[in-house]
């Protein structure tokens, strides 16, 4: 490995060092504020280190990881998401009487897993990254909200068991693919189809679908989505937010890279399976959210739908028309989804009190009259998730549309339209609830919020609006950075 290749892994190394430092700190001196500051510092350093790293790209650092501009973009996105998420976690935990500074350690490990995922072009690093992301998540999901609070444990067990099953599927799928292609690196699968008899190879297809199922589980795509609402609801808010944003975003970046490098779009049955999953996810996600009164569950279902939309962009990849538009669409949509979802979670965290989390629609009743700014934030988040113009979500959805139109995916497009229509209902329902005349439950925001969570909320609102009104800079950045994967 060359020095440049090692240097290109600088963000990962910095995060690992911060994690080690945090372990030592917690071992000797337990202080929530200090741990938070250290974790934030590590994340910031890692983000800043992307700048010098950009100078030495692309680098194949060991056979497992590739640092190209695609990885750079998604590393940046992951780190920005983490930086926005961590203050929300802090806001949550500093209200608790129990000391939970290990949460930040687990958080850092999960971010490392995500960084490995977005830079992976090898099945081994895929599995490593995925487990590095998932195992801390299991623990984070299981964090009791307060002593003797069991739903989070139930959620953790559910996640552990089902996630284990999904990992097993993924591993089995990888083994079958390896059996076929003889390599664990992501490589075009097409030559293999010619080498073996028959137009389609059942073993390879089974392997691909098994691997896809493993990934689809983590992305909570139908029919592997059943865990999502229960785990979202049971987990403490910071863990739910991490699960919904960072984990899924990084994994989708990996899925896109795998799909492109293995030229999966040439394998008809795989495309069919993806189409089915996309349609089912869009419909089921939005229909399940329709009359949902629990906001955490609502966001869980909504994420199912959103990853269905993202799959549509994936389907728009084809040999004839190239991949640029689809990659752009996925990237932009992911940014939109991450920011909007984070904004929604930010409001929930801010509304939660010491003894209970704000998670029902009832908690939002009349929010406009109690907390106009929080209500505005949540309104923007909902509008953005629904894809209403002048928010970032609209631009993202427009991208998906454009990509699908370009590829003439009319059936899928029709489902996108129907699902978006259904989606509008429950997003607007939340907004309607907030404008309710009677004030609803008394203000829960007992202690003044930490300045960092204020800042995060402000940044999210600004980004949601700014990139919705003036998306050009972000588009240019994405175009510039995601070209490498083609």
């Amino acid at each position, binding site marked *: 490995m060359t020095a440049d290749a090692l240097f290109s892994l600088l963000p990962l190394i910095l995060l690992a060092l911060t994690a080690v430092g945090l372990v030592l700190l917690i071992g000797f001196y337990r202080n929530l504020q200090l741990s938070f500051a250290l974790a934030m510092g590590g994340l910031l350093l890692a983000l800043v280190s992307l700048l010098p790293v950009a100078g030495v790209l692309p680098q194949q650092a060991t056979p497992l990881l590739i640092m190209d501009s695609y990885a750079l973009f998604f590393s940046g996105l992951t780190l920005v998401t983490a930086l926005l998420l961590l203050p929300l976690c802090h806001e949550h935990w500093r209200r608790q009487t129990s000391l939970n500074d290990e949460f930040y350690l687990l958080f850092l490990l999960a971010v490392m897993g995500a960084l490995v995922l977005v830079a992976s072009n090898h099945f081994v690093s895929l599995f490593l990254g995925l487990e590095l992301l998932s195992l801390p998540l299991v623990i984070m999901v299981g964090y009791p909200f307060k002593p003797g609070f069991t739903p989070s444990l139930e959620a953790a*067990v*559910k996640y552990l*068991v*089902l996630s284990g*099953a*999904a990992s097993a*599927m993924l591993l089995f799928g990888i083994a079958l693919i390896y059996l076929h292609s003889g390599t664990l690196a992501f490589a075009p699968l097409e030559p293999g189809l010619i080498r073996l008899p028959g137009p*389609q190879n*059942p073993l390879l*297809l*089974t392997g*691909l*679908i*098994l691997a*896809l*199922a493993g990934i689809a*589980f983590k992305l909570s795509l*139908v*029919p*592997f989505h*059943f*865990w999502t*609402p*229960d785990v979202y609801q049971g987990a403490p808010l910071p863990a739910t937010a991490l699960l919904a944003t960072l984990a899924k975003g990084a994994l989708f970046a990996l899925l896109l890279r795998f799909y492109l490098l293995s030229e999966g779009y040439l394998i*008809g*049955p*795989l495309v*069919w*399976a993806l189409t*089915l*999953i996309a349609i089912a996810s869009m*419909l*089921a996600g939005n*229909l*399940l959210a*329709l*009359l949902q009164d629990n906001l955490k569950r609502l966001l869980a279902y909504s994420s199912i739908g959103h990853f269905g939309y993202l799959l549509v962009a994936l389907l728009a990849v084809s040999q004839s028309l190239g991949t640029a538009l689809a990659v752009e669409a996925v990237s932009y949509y992911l940014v939109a989804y991450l920011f909007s979802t984070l904004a929604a979670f930010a409001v929930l965290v801010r509304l939660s009190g010491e003894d209970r989390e704000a998670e029902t629609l009832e908690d939002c009743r009349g929010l406009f009259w109690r907390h106009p700014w929080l209500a505005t934030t949540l309104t923007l988040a909902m509008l953005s998730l629904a894809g209403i113009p002048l928010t970032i979500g609209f631009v993202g959805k427009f991208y998906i549309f454009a990509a699908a139109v370009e590829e003439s995916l009319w059936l899928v497009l029709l489902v996108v339209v129907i699902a978006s229509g*259904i989606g509008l*209902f429950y997003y607007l329902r939340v907004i309607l609830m907030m404008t309710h005349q009677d004030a609803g439950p008394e203000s829960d925001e007992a202690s003044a919020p930490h300045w960092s969570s204020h800042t995060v909320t402000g940044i999210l609102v600004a980004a949601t609006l700014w990139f919705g009104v003036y998306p050009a800079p972000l588009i240019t950045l994405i175009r510039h950075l995601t070209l490498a994967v083609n």
Partner: protein
Amino acid sequence: MLKLLWLIPALPLASSLLLILTQGRLPRAAVAALGVGSVGLAALIAFAIAAGFDMGTTYSQHLWQWFAIGSLQPGFSFYLDGLSLVMLLVVTGVGFLIHLYASAYMHPDPDYSRFFASMNLFLAAMLVLVLADNLLLLYLGWEGVGLCSYLLIGFWYQDPANGAAARKAFVITRVGDTAMAIGLFLLVREFGTLDIQQVLSAAPERWPDGSTLATACALLLLGGAVGKSAQLPLQNWLPDAMAGPTPVSALIHAATMVTAGVYLIARTHDLFLLAPAAQTLVAVVGVLTLLLAGYSALAQTDIKRILAYSTISQIGYMFLALGVGAWSAGIFHLVTHAFFKALLFLSAGSLILALHHQQDIRAMGGLYRRTPLLFGCFLVGSACLAALPLTSGFFSKEPILAQAWESSALLWLGALLGAGLTALYSFRLMFVVFFGPLQTPPQPLDMPPTIKARMPAVLLVLALLSLFGGALSLPLDGVLPATEAHPPMLVEAVGIGVPLLGVYLAYHFYLARPERLTQLLKFRGSRRLQILAQSGGGFDWLYDRFLRTPFIWLAKTNRDDAADLISRGTAGLSRYSHQLLAETQNGQLRWYASLMGLGLAFLIGMGVLT
């Protein structure tokens, strides 16, 4: 000086925007200075322009292109000729006087700033309407004044009745506006342009006299005019519009906006000349309206409603004038009417203020000694309204009657009867309010004297204008076709005599021998006639019975039609699917694991088998 033409609508508009943006945070004095000052400045510019204007010429000012679609290229362009100059002077001049009056009248109102914001916006829109060189810009002003009328009728929105009156005015005028819009579409289709002068010069070349298309266009424009000017059959919104503050009634619902229909017809008179049938209809509508409104005014007890009906009836005279071809006389009557009706409304406003918002004339009486100034103003105004000799109303109404005589004896007879009615109801008002026993004593106004003084000052100016306005000569030659009518002496004598008879009858029945009137009303037939008059001809009832009720019935019957089935069906389907899917989320791990396995098996099976 002509270059400053654009400033005339721009000044009130700017002041209005400023007042809207400051949201009532300015002190009263500043609001008044802005609201009245901007209009005053606009009026000054208008008079300066008029002083230097070479009569008989025209002037166009192109500000910028609005949009361009093919040959339809409307611009923000103003067009000044004799006709628009007259309107310009009336709107800014009378507008300024009424604004000045309102700055005192509305002084105690908490929404002082909102009032002037709306009034200035109205004036800007009205000036755009008057100055527009194309029908689209005119339509913008047309709708603008409609909006401001709505805002000002419902100015005291806390009372739901005022809101209802505002809605009624808006909806009913909208009926006419729709007709007008269709007329504009037709003109665009035929001529490809809405430039007024181009349309008017092209129309006689393309259409022969009495052609169907010309008649259709003229009728559609008449529809718009009828709605805006409260003529039959769209007249019933104006009496209710009196719910607004009295200066609003004076400015919008007497002097300026309601005469916009007259202006529209005069502006597009070439079209009406091509369609004699439509022009005759204008005259017939005018006569019917003036009779009905004059008759209705007889039985009203609310002082403002009497004046409202008299406005409808006087605009009827203007329509009659346009219909029989006395174009200039119609516009002349518009001008004098603006003077004396503003005078009457503002005097009524002062009276209402002095009597603590008492508007019922039955509660008034014997006021001529207590309020001599108002009595004088009312006397002048009523004399003009009744067209008593030597007043301005006489000079403007006489040529209308003369031309009607030339045109058709029936129209003349109607107009003559109307003149008698006018004298009767206006002097009924005089006698009931100012003579007889004192009912409610007037109270002095609680207002700073410098502000209070504005009201009598404005009244005096308007009274002078009303008295001597008949001596004005309007620069309409060359713009509107000139007509000369020389009816026999006898006809003219009758025209002078009938109003005097009306005054005598009023004196007889309301002052000298009121018991005769009571006797007269004992008959069943006359009682019914009185109710008919009180309800303004029963149009509200008619529309309610034959339009509103069937419409509501239709809407109710049509509630569950096929279109609803689709939307409800999809909602129901979504709900059902949601419930079905929600069943799968039962929280049981084993169930989740099996479903995942099943799904995987299905996907693999599909993938391998296809």
